[in-house]
């Protein structure tokens, strides 16, 4: 029933229907017709400035200065050091490796996420029985704390855990989370599983917006299930796909909890360390926030670059 409520998004965009009388009013009232709106929004605007805008700028500033933790209130000199923090960060092989690790993660996680969530959403979209139950079961991993589900995965994927018991002689040695080859793919699989429900819901919403007539005319043209999926569904949900690509990439770049807990802090041998994990170790444990900030700045630039590429090649012309 709820699915009929499809995207009321731009039903009345703000500022629509602005008449010339409105502009007149603005001259007399510099804050608009309801200046109260600004008062209502003031706490939120303050919050965004203090928690997002200022720290964002501060982070870039820190990355270009010699910054260390000082006692609160102490006046210390923080000289400008140019790119020195970036050089320090990226002459460390562990940092380079962590970026490679996230690359492996994204190569596994992002395609798997797009394919599985679209597949499951399409299947779910067309059934009438068990729909509610299935939707809830797919969504539950997304709702649950990583820390809680990590505990089960540790139990499932440890050396003589259930997964290896089922695989028997096929089980990798050393086991999943302590193997240099398998640690990162296992984490990628974990995150795919955990987040999939969210993307399924995104696709379910997008599928409501694909006109039914397109399927009917595809069927008239003799297209089978697979053909109509490829030629109607896939292009029809393209905006959602772009969004799924973007969100899963950003989520992947934010990876911290899983390597911290599943592989005991990015092990074995740094094979599953993520940039955020290195930022935590370098910045807060070893007390070099400036180097950590530099890693963060580069990470964000890389993510923006990937997002731009995705948008360019998957987003189509619209």
């Amino acid at each position, binding site marked *: 029933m709820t699915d009929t409520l499809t*995207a009321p998004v731009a039903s009345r965009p703000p500022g629509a229907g602005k008449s010339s009388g409105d502009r007149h009013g603005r001259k007399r009232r510099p804050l608009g017709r309801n200046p109260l709106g600004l008062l209502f929004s003031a706490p939120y605007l303050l919050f965004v400035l203090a928690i997002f805008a200022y720290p964002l700028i501060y982070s870039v500033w820190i990355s270009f200065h010699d910054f260390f933790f000082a006692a609160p209130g102490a006046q210390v000199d923080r000289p400008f050091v140019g790119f020195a923090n970036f050089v320090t960060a990226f002459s460390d092989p562990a940092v380079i490796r962590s970026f490679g690790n996230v690359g492996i993660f994204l190569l596994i996680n992002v395609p798997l996420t797009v394919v599985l969530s679209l597949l499951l959403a399409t299947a779910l979209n067309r059934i009438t029985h068990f729909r509610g139950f299935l939707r809830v079961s797919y969504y*539950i991993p997304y709702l*649950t704390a990583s820390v809680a589900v990590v505990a089960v995965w540790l139990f499932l994927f440890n050396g003589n855990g259930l997964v290896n018991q089922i695989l028997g002689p096929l089980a990798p040695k050393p086991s999943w989370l302590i193997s240099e080859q398998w640690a990162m793919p296992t984490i990628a699989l974990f995150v795919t599983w955990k987040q999939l429900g969210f993307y399924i819901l995104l696709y379910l919403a997008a599928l409501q917006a694909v006109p039914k007539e397109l399927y009917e005319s595809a069927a008239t043209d003799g297209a089978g299930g697979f053909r109509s999926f490829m030629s109607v569904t896939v292009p029809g949900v393209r905006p959602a796909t772009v969004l799924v690509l973007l969100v899963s990439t950003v989520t992947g770049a934010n990876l911290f909890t899983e390597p*911290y807990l599943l592989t005991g802090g990015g092990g074995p041998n740094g094979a599953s360390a993520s940039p955020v994990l290195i930022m935590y170790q370098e910045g*807060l444990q070893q007390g070099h*926030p400036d180097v950590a900030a530099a890693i963060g700045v580069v990470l964000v630039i890389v993510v923006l670059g990937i997002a731009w590429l995705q948008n360019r090649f998957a987003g189509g012309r619209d």
Partner: protein
Amino acid sequence: MHDVRMSRGARTLRAVVLALGAVAFLFPFYYMVIGSLQAKPDPTIAGAFPNPANITGENYAQINDRINLFQGLLNSGIFTAGVLIGTMVFGLLVGYALAQLQWRGRGVTFALALLVQVVPFQLLIIPLYVLIARDYGLADNYLGMILPFFINSTAVIIFRQYFLQLPRELFDAARIDGASELKLLWRIAIPLVRPALITVVLLTFIGPWNEFLWPFLVTKETSLQPLAVSLANYISNVASSASNPFGATLAGAVVLAAPVVVLFIVFQRYFISTDIGSGVKG
């Protein structure tokens, strides 16, 4: 529906895919509960089925000895309640102002709410840590935990979306009668969007309740740590010294996961999938 035209084979395939999906998503949760009740960890295939000879509540007692579960739940609750209050009070005000009031800066505010959602948190952890934990001295403090999550921007956008759907005439009529904007929000707008409120409460709830990285950074005092943090510390430090580390860890995991799962199942009929889509897309 186009369902009729699907062949029997296609329909069977679809049912198999959906069922496999459900098993893959639900089995770990079932296994979590089973594992938390095992007196001795049994990772064999037979161990995936309940075995009356191997069932105990001991793991719950053991994890409670190591990390105070009640205190952890209480801390998670305070952290989450703070975020819920901030979001429900200030988020509703902004959402209403964005949808129903005309004021200078409305477009910019809406754009900010969208932009905030794509700001990667990883870039913010260092400056936020410096500001909140060091400069403001809010380490080991509930306020320091709550602050970065105080107003959920996705909630703001969902509120705006819902308030936009309400007919403006309704408000204009009440305004002519001399009702104040706060009264309009409280008496007319909020009662009309009640289902959306439940969705937003659920969405907002899971953020702080499940959050690990930030509270982990700002709380060193164990008596202040939310359950996600104390359980994570248990997994990474002390689990190896317990007699049944898996059982105890899984018992903690059940306690951490249960409130969210129960809340979601109880309220899932109010939970509207499209909300999330529109929340992210804007």
